[in-house]
């Protein structure tokens, strides 16, 4: 583990995000019991784990959506309190949430600029619909997803199209730290390939740190530099992607499951 970490520091840029000892309780449920993670600029971290392991909860703490009950977060080396989504965003953190965070009744372009709207110059702070429409079209064309018209309501799109909108929104926000919660879950093979190619392009820029939650071991190992396994609110395994395999990860998960049921 120490090995993987030093290696990451050699290969990649400066550490972008670090969380230590994160605890989160929802009433009597302890969703996270002391979780740590770190990711460097230019690096991509994959998080794997069972349903309910606490992956999304960890991500929502890193976006400022949830507040941790204990633990610290460092952004670009400085300790920060991410008290709100806006605060996290102002530090360069963007997220594709598992539920996609889209409003069905609003148009595609309104969704893509939700809470980061472009305004017309002048004292009245009116929305610049035209600029948002144009930029949304560019962003979608850029990630190569077939969306006929950005005026359409998001509720009329297919699951994969909706996911593409959410990814395009996060990617086109100039984020330095990109958090992706199952960004490929509803995608067709061609579209998933396009999103992965896009993520790899971003990674190649070298100045963006990416964290991706996924369930597909093989795919995750293929695109990520490092992977981390979460179970029951803790990190149970961490490795460089090149040094492990889907079979090994599966074996670890099975063993822990057995141990948990046994003891």
């Amino acid at each position, binding site marked *: 583990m120490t090995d993987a970490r030093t290696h990451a520091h050699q290969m990649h840029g400066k550490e972008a995000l670090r969380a230590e000892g994160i605890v989160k309780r929802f009433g009597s449920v302890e969703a996270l019991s002391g979780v740590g993670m770190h990711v460097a600029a230019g690096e991509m971290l994959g998080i794997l784990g069972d349903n309910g392991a606490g992956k999304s909860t960890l991500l929502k703490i890193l976006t400022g959506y949830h507040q941790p009950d204990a633990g610290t977060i460092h952004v670009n080396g400085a300790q920060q309190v991410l008290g709100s989504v806006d605060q996290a965003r102002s530090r360069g953190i963007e997220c594709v949430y598992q*539920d996609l965070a889209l409003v069905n*009744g609003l148009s595609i372009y309104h969704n893509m600029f939700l809470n980061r709207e472009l305004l017309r110059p002048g004292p009245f702070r*009116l*929305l610049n619909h035209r600029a948002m429409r144009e930029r949304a079209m*560019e962003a979608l064309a850029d990630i190569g997803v077939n969306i006929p018209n950005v005026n359409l309501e998001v509720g009329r799109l297919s699951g994969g199209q909706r996911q593409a909108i959410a990814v395009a929104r996060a990617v086109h926000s100039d984020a330095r730290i990109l958090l992706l919660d199952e960004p490929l879950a509803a995608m067709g093979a061609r579209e998933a390939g396009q999103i992965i190619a896009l993520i790899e392009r971003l990674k190649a820029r070298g100045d963006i740190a990416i964290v991706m939650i996924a369930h597909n071991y093989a795919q995750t190992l293929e695109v990520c530099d490092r992977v981390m396994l979460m179970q029951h609110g803790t990190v149970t395994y961490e490795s460089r992607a090149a040094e492990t395999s889907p079979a090994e990860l599966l074996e670890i998960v099975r063993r822990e499951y057995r141990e948990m049921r046994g003891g």
Partner: protein
Amino acid sequence: MQQRNDPARAGRLPPRRSLASRLMDLALRPEASVVVVAIVLVVYFEATANNFLTDANLQTLSQFVAAPVILACGEIMLLICREIDLSVGQVFALAPFIMEKAYNVGIPVPGAIVAALFVCALVGLVIGLITVHLNVPSFITTLGMFFLITGITLTISRGFPADTPNAGVLNNILGGWGYAEFLWALGLVALMHIVLRHTRWGLHTIATGGNAIAAAEAGINIDRIKIGNFIITSTLGGFCGILEAFRIGSTDPLAGGSNIMFLGVASGVIGGTAIAGGAGTIIGGLVGGIVLGILQDGFTLQGINAFMFDIIIGAAILLAMIANIQMARWRGMRPQ
């Protein structure tokens, strides 16, 4: 085939649409069906009660329409973010008395109006804080407020009507002139339409009602949006009560009330605002208010008896709402 998959073009080419399809879009806008209803009603009443389109009657009509439309502007914002204010008709009655009290201690009329509106805004703030932070449904919060404010108004007025202060030409502007209140309503409709369609506040209001979790994940402070819309609604309610006081020349402590509040809500819903939240139109609220006004005024001209009248209005509201929901379903089913 090639073209459709070309990523560079994918987002750019809006599909070519025929004139018929564009007209269809226009016809299926939530406001459009209500506009048609309004026109049909005008034609019908002009034909059957031949003094309908006279200056005197239009003035009466405009006065009937103004208050529900102004209240609708606030209620529509609240309905969109899945809340409602049942107490706005009470604030409507309270505001003129606060204005009168302030005037009587020596504050000039404009200052007295500001003081009254400030109290109304405070009422909205309290409703919002209770609803959002104590998790009381606004239906219940504002039901409580309904009785509470009625009591306050009756107490400070001792149950007697009060004369509206005389502020010279200001009286005419604020409702003394025949069409003044209606012009205020139109102005407020224009203002709130811009707020809803062309500001972040409006967009965030729609997002809050459409998907509160998504809005919060995008970083929108949904509590602030809701509290703000309660404040807007109460303030508009108070302002409307003040306009009415200037038009009539005096204020009754039992003015407004649930009747005017429900007319406001009904105007919004008839105009196409979804009770379930996430969608709505201020212009629709204006047209909805006009439809209700035409019905009331038209049947009065026809001399229909008062009991029959309520039955007809009730049925008309039901019909308009059913039409509204069916229209929304047709829009939803239409292939793009």
